[in-house]
């Protein structure tokens, strides 16, 4: 089911009735979420929001959009206070954003791009064999799902626009895995965090795909804040995130998010991505 803002707010209202909230004086914090993570785990998202509200002692509003582009627009228009965004949009909007925290995935602040093919095509061993095939991208602003495979082709001396017979966007890593598993696309590049998490949750889907190659590490998609945000809000949220793994409720949520925790992180973690973007004349 596609989550719209309305159904999401509806779910929040139900939650509000179920568990009476303390009356918070301050205005709500608006937190953006991108489809890379949690996009279908509405229950988990609602619990995380309740956790944040309890820790921050103020209302939190979650804003979900179907594409990275829409979240990026909201950030640019300063309609969001915080957001969990992909690496590529972060580097792209670096000047307008402050890095709040970086998640720890498998105890590292890194993730990779996985090149996957359909399990019915075991003869395909690397990207070059996908010439003239149908290839699935995740989102135009996805680092692992769009930028990295194109960068690789560029390095191979190929024109990413002509190498494949056809490409299309699924706007979600989860759906990209499905597209490859169903054989709609012969190959795709996917977020390692999503593929690994899905393999733990729904192995029947990932079993129909083959992991062909792994990219080098990139900085994990960070939590960012708009530059204009008051310092108090910024540090409150940053502390709340970093301290999450210290309390039982927070570590339970982290476990369900398949993360180890959040660290402060530094912007140079994302230099590798910036370099790839420069190859395409961006950033």
């Amino acid at each position, binding site marked *: 089911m596609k989550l719209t803002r309305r159904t999401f707010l509806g779910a929040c209202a139900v939650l509000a009735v179920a568990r009476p909230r303390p009356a918070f004086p301050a205005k709500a914090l608006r937190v953006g979420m991108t489809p890379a993570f949690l996009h279908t785990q509405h229950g988990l998202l609602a619990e995380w929001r309740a956790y944040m509200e309890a820790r921050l002692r103020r209302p939190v509003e979650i804003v979900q959009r179907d594409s990275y582009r829409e979240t990026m627009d909201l950030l640019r228009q300063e309609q969001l206070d915080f957001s969990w965004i992909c690496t590529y949009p972060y580097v792209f909007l670096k000047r307008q954003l402050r890095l709040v925290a970086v998640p720890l995935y498998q105890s590292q602040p890194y993730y990779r791009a996985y090149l996957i093919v359909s399990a019915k095509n075991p003869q395909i061993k690397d990207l070059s064999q996908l010439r003239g095939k*149908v290839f699935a991208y995740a989102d135009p602003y996805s680092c692992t799902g769009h930028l990295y495979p194109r960068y690789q082709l560029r390095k191979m001396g190929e024109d990413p626009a002509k190498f494949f017979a*056809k490409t299309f966007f699924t*706007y979600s890593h989860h759906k990209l895995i499905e*597209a490859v598993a*169903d*054989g*709609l*696309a012969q190959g795709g590049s996917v977020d390692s965090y999503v593929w690994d998490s899905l393999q733990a949750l729904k192995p029947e889907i990932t079993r129909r795909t083959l992991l062909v190659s792994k990219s080098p590490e990139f900085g994990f998609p960070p939590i960012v804040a708009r530059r204009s945000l008051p310092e108090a809000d910024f540090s409150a949220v940053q502390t709340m995130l970093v301290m999450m793994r210290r309390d039982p409720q927070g570590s339970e949520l982290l476990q369900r998010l398949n993360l180890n925790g959040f660290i402060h992180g530094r912007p140079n973690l994302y230099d590798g991505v910036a370099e790839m973007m420069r190859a395409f004349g961006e950033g």
Partner: protein
Amino acid sequence: MTPRPMRFLLNLSFRYKVPLWGSLLIVGTAAIISSTLLLGSYQELKSDLLRDATTQGRTMTASLFPAMLHDQVWRAYEIIRAPFGRESGEHPVQAESFVVLDQRGQVYVSTTPEAIPMLADFRQLSPDYAALATAIAQPGHDTKVLEPDGSEHLFVTTPIREEQAHLGTLVQIYSKKVLHSRFQKSAEQAALTAVLVIVLLLPLGWYWGQRTAVPLVRLTERMEELGRRLPDNLAPELYDYQDELGRLYHAYNRTLQELRGKAEIERQMIHSERLAAIGKLTAGIAHEINNPLLGMLTAVNTLRHHGELNPRTLKTLTLLERGLIQIKDTVGALLVEAKVRSRDLSPQDMEDVRTLIEPQARARGVSLRWDSQLSAPLPLPSTAVRQVLINLLLNAVQASAPGGEVAVTIGTRSGSDTSLALVVVNGGEILTDMQTAHLFEPFANEDERGRGLGLWVCYQIVRQLGGNIAVQSDLRDGAGRTAFEVTLPLGAAQ
């Protein structure tokens, strides 16, 4: 000519034919009804499928249009994939595949990307699809149902268009196998029901067949006997209904009754004709004998009185005369003449007969029960009637065992013709069939007691007076009962 096996079937007894035809009718009816229902359900299934498919196609193409317009392959895939349950269970009729073709006939996206991959030329994938592509290429605005000859698939095609913009075509592919397997399921159910109906109805049919056939078979057996002898009646409980067969039974039994009556009359006629012939012969002979006899007696008499005869001749003459007189008596007895003039019968005549017979009855130890209801003279020759009554009584007394009883009833009967009725009953041994058959013939019952002319005389008299004599001899409650009944119409003799 009817072929041999058919002939054999048609020659079968009704006992088998009726239930057999009945069974055939039941089986045939069950088969026809089942197949009609099945055909109907197949057509319904198909039209349901096509209606659903058409509606679904129109709905999908409406949302496919913007997806194709913005080249959102994944969106298009999600749209066409939606009707297929993810954990594909029992959908009424699951489509085999949905395919979106672009304007050039290339596969834009399909729900079975491994068999019908993106970008493939649809025409090249299978001969079915080639035929289909040609049909799609023809301009049209609405959904089409295509069923290429010899194909195992049904296709529903819907153009993806808005206003003047035509982006491609949605093709819904249904396997006829799904229809067939669904049809097979219904067919199996129908067959099962039919078998159940047959199992229930066949014994009933067989039973009714037997109910009709068995009486017919019995009737036929009886009718076939008719030529040889008169068969028995059919037991009415064998078929106690008022339909044609029941009426046939009644008619048969009635016919049989009439035939029996006719046979009895024939027997009686033969009997009386024989008696009449004997009577005629006897009378003729008696007349022929009487004439010379009278002459001879006269001659002997004359010789006795006028001649000088020695004792030896006289003795011879006496011997001759006695012999001739015995012949005359015998002939006289044979020559019954009832219509000699005589006075009318009076009640006293009956009393005279009683007085005459009583000593003889007493001598044999037989009691006489007398019941005469005559109160006035009747116009009948008294001599003849007395003769008949005396003969019958003498016979009855002699037939009775000592201690027995002879009952006499005398009265008049009024009917179309008033008649005198004499009934003489004795309780002696009953008559044998042989005796009954020749009862009224002269010398038929000759024994030590007499020459057996008594009944012959009775018969002759009664016939000459236009009456009737009948005998009934049978066992009643272990005792014999033989009754002679004489009826004489009044006035017939005068």
